[in-house]
C-alpha cells in the first residue's frame, strides 16, 4: 500500500506531470475572470479559504511530511540542513497564502452585502502607537530571536569539503533562492536564464504598480475586486517562483536528473537528453532536406516564430480575450503588460516543446552564442 502511494507520488512529482496540473489548478483556484470564478464557485474550491479548509490543508501537508519521513530517501533530502528553510518556507507560504485569501474572501462577502471591508471597520478606531504597536513589535522581535536561536542550536551550519576546483560535486546547486533560475537553465541558455530573464523579472516586478491601474482594492484584502492581478501574480509567484525553486531543491539529483521524492539518487540513472533544434526539425524531418549552410536561411523559421509570438499574439489577444484589459490599460501599458506576460509564458511553452518534441533551441546560432 505505502509502496504504491510512493510510486504514485514519484510519478506525479515529475515536472512533466505536476507542472501542467499546477498551472490548471492555479487557473481555477485563483480565477482571473468571471467565467473561471463561476467554475470555482460551482466546484466549491473557494472553501479552502475557510477555517475548515485551512485545517484540511495543513493536516494534509503535515500528513504528507510525516508519511514521507518514514522513507529513508525522502528523509535524506528534506533534513539536509540547507533544505530545512525551504521546508519551513513551504509551510509559511501556504499559511500566509491561506491567511490572505481567507481574509480576501471574507471581505468579498462583506462587500457583496454592501458593507465596507473589515479593515475599514477597524480603521474607524484610532489608537496610540505607544504602547499598542510598540509592544506587538517587541513581542515579535523576541519570538523571532527565540526562533533563530533555537534553529542555530538545533542545526549546525553546513560546511562541506574544502574548495577543490577540479572536482565538481554532483549535483552542484546554486543557493536555494536561485534554484528557480537554475531550473530555467535546463530549458534556456545562460544568457537568457541567467541574465536576461532575471533582469526582466526584476523590471517586471517594478512595473506592477504602473501596469495595474485598477483603483480598487488598495489597503485591504480582496480577491473579487482584483481577480486578474492576483491570478497573474499567483502564476508568477507560486508556480514559476516557489514551485520551480522547490523542484530544484528537492527533486533534482545527480547529473541534474529528475528524481521523485521517494527515489534513490542513483548517479547512473540514464535519461535520454538528445535534443534537436527547431531548424533541424523543420528541414530534416518536415521538409526532408539538408539544413542550409546560410545562418539566416537556417534560422529564419525560429525568428519567424519569435516575431509572431511577440508581435502578433498581443494584437490577437487585444481583439479577443483581453479586449477589456486593452481598453482599461491603453496602448503603452497594454504592450508592456503583454510583453512581460509572454516572457513569463515562454518558460512553460519551452518546457512543453522540450517534453513533447525534444526541441532544444528555437533559434540556434552557436557561432555567436545566440541560442534561444
Amino acid at each position, binding site marked *: 500500500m505505502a509502496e504504491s502511494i510512493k510510486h504514485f507520488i514519484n510519478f506525479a512529482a515529475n515536472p512533466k506531470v505536476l507542472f501542467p496540473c499546477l498551472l490548471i489548478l492555479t487557473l481555477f483556484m485563483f480565477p482571473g475572470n468571471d467565467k473561471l470564478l463561476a467554475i470555482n464557485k460551482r466546484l466549491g474550491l473557494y472553501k479552502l479559504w475557510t477555517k475548515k479548509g485551512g485545517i484540511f490543508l495543513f493536516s494534509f501537508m503535515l500528513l504528507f511530511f510525516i508519511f514521507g519521513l518514514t522513507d529513508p530517501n525522502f528523509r535524506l533530502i528534506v533534513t539536509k540542513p540547507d533544505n530545512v528553510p525551504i521546508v519551513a518556507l513551504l509551510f509559511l507560504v501556504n499559511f500566509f497564502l491561506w491567511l490572505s485569501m481567507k481574509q480576501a474572501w471574507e471581505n468579498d462577502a462583506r462587500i457583496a452585502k454592501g458593507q465596507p471591508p473589515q479593515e475599514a471597520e477597524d480603521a474607524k478606531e484610532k489608537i496610540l502607537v505607544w504602547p499598542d504597536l510598540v509592544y506587538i513589535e517587541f513581542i515579535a522581535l523576541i519570538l523571532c530571536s527565540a526562533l533563530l536561536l533555537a534553529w542555530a542550536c538545533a542545526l549546525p551550519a553546513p560546511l562541506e569539503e574544502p574548495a577543490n*576546483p*577540479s572536482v*565538481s560535486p554532483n*549535483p*552542484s546547486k546554486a543557493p536555494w533562492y536561485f534554484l528557480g533560475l537554475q531550473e530555467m537553465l535546463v530549458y534556456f541558455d545562460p544568457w537568457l536564464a541567467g541574465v536576461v530573464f532575471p533582469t526582466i523579472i526584476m523590471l517586471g516586478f517594478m512595473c506592477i504598480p504602473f501596469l495595474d491601474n485598477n483603483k480598487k482594492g488598495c489597503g485591504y484584502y480582496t480577491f473579487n475586486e482584483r481577480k486578474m492581478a492576483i491570478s497573474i501574480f499567483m502564476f508568477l509567484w507560486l508556480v514559476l517562483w516557489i514551485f520551480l525553486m522547490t523542484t530544484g531543491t528537492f527533486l533534482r539529483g545527480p547529473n*541534474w536528473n529528475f528524481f521523485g521524492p521517494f527515489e534513490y539518487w542513483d548517479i547512473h540513472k540514464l535519461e535520454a*537528453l538528445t535534443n534537436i533544434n527547431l531548424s533541424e526539425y523543420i528541414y530534416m524531418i518536415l521538409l526532408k532536406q539538408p539544413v542550409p549552410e546560410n545562418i539566416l536561411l537556417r534560422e529564419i523559421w525560429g525568428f519567424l516564430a519569435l516575431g509572431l509570438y511577440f508581435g502578433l499574439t498581443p494584437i490577437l489577444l487585444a481583439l479577443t480575450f483581453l479586449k477589456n484589459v486593452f481598453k482599461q490599460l491603453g496602448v503603452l501599458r497594454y504592450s508592456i503588460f503583454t510583453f512581460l506576460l509572454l516572457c513569463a509564458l515562454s518558460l512553460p511553452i519551452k518546457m512543453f516543446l522540450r517534453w513533447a518534441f525534444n526541441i532544444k533551441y528555437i533559434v540556434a546560432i552557436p*557561432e555567436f*552564442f545566440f541560442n534561444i
Partner: protein
Amino acid sequence: MNTPVTSSSQSAPVQPPSRPVQKPDDANMDRRSFIKWLPLGWAAFAAVVAGYGTLVLRYLFPNVLFEPKQSFLAGTIDDYTAGEVSERFKERYGVWVVRDSEKIYALSTVCTHLGCTPNWLASEAKFKCPCHGSGFYKTGINFEGPAPRPLERFKIFLADDGEIVVDKTQKFQQEKGEWIDPDSYILA
C-alpha cells in the same frame, strides 16, 4: 507702496555708482549669455562624470594577474597510448590530453554550459558534467544536455627537445572552425 519704488528707480542713475556700470560688451557675463553657455557646461560635467566612471570601471581590471602558469610541459608523445584520455593534468592545469588514432589534442576541463568540471566516464566513453548533465564525446563535441557548444581545445605543440607543450592562453573553438588549425593538435 508705489512712491518709494518709483523714486528709487528714478534716483538710481543719479546715485554715484558704487561699482562700474555694466555695458553689453563688458567681460562680465549677463544672465542671458550665461544661459546660452549652460548646455556646454552640463556637457562638460557629464563628460567628466563619464570619464571618472570609466576610470573606476578600468580600476576593476588589474594590469597583472597573479594566476597559475598558463603553459606546461606534458611529457612526450610516447607517454600517451592511442584512444586514451589522460587525466594527469586535470587537477593542476584543467586540461585533458587526448590521443586518438592520428593526433594529440588538449581539451579544456571547463564545461561550456556554466563552467563546472565534467567527469571522464571511461566505460561510457564520454565526458559527463555533474551540474546540468551535459555530455561530450571524446573529441569534445557536445551531444546531450544543455551545453550549447563543444569543449574548447588549447594550443599544443612540440618543443625543440621533443616535449609536448600545452599553452592555455590560446584556445580553439570547433563552432568557429578553429580545430583544423595546426596549432590545435600534434600529429602522432
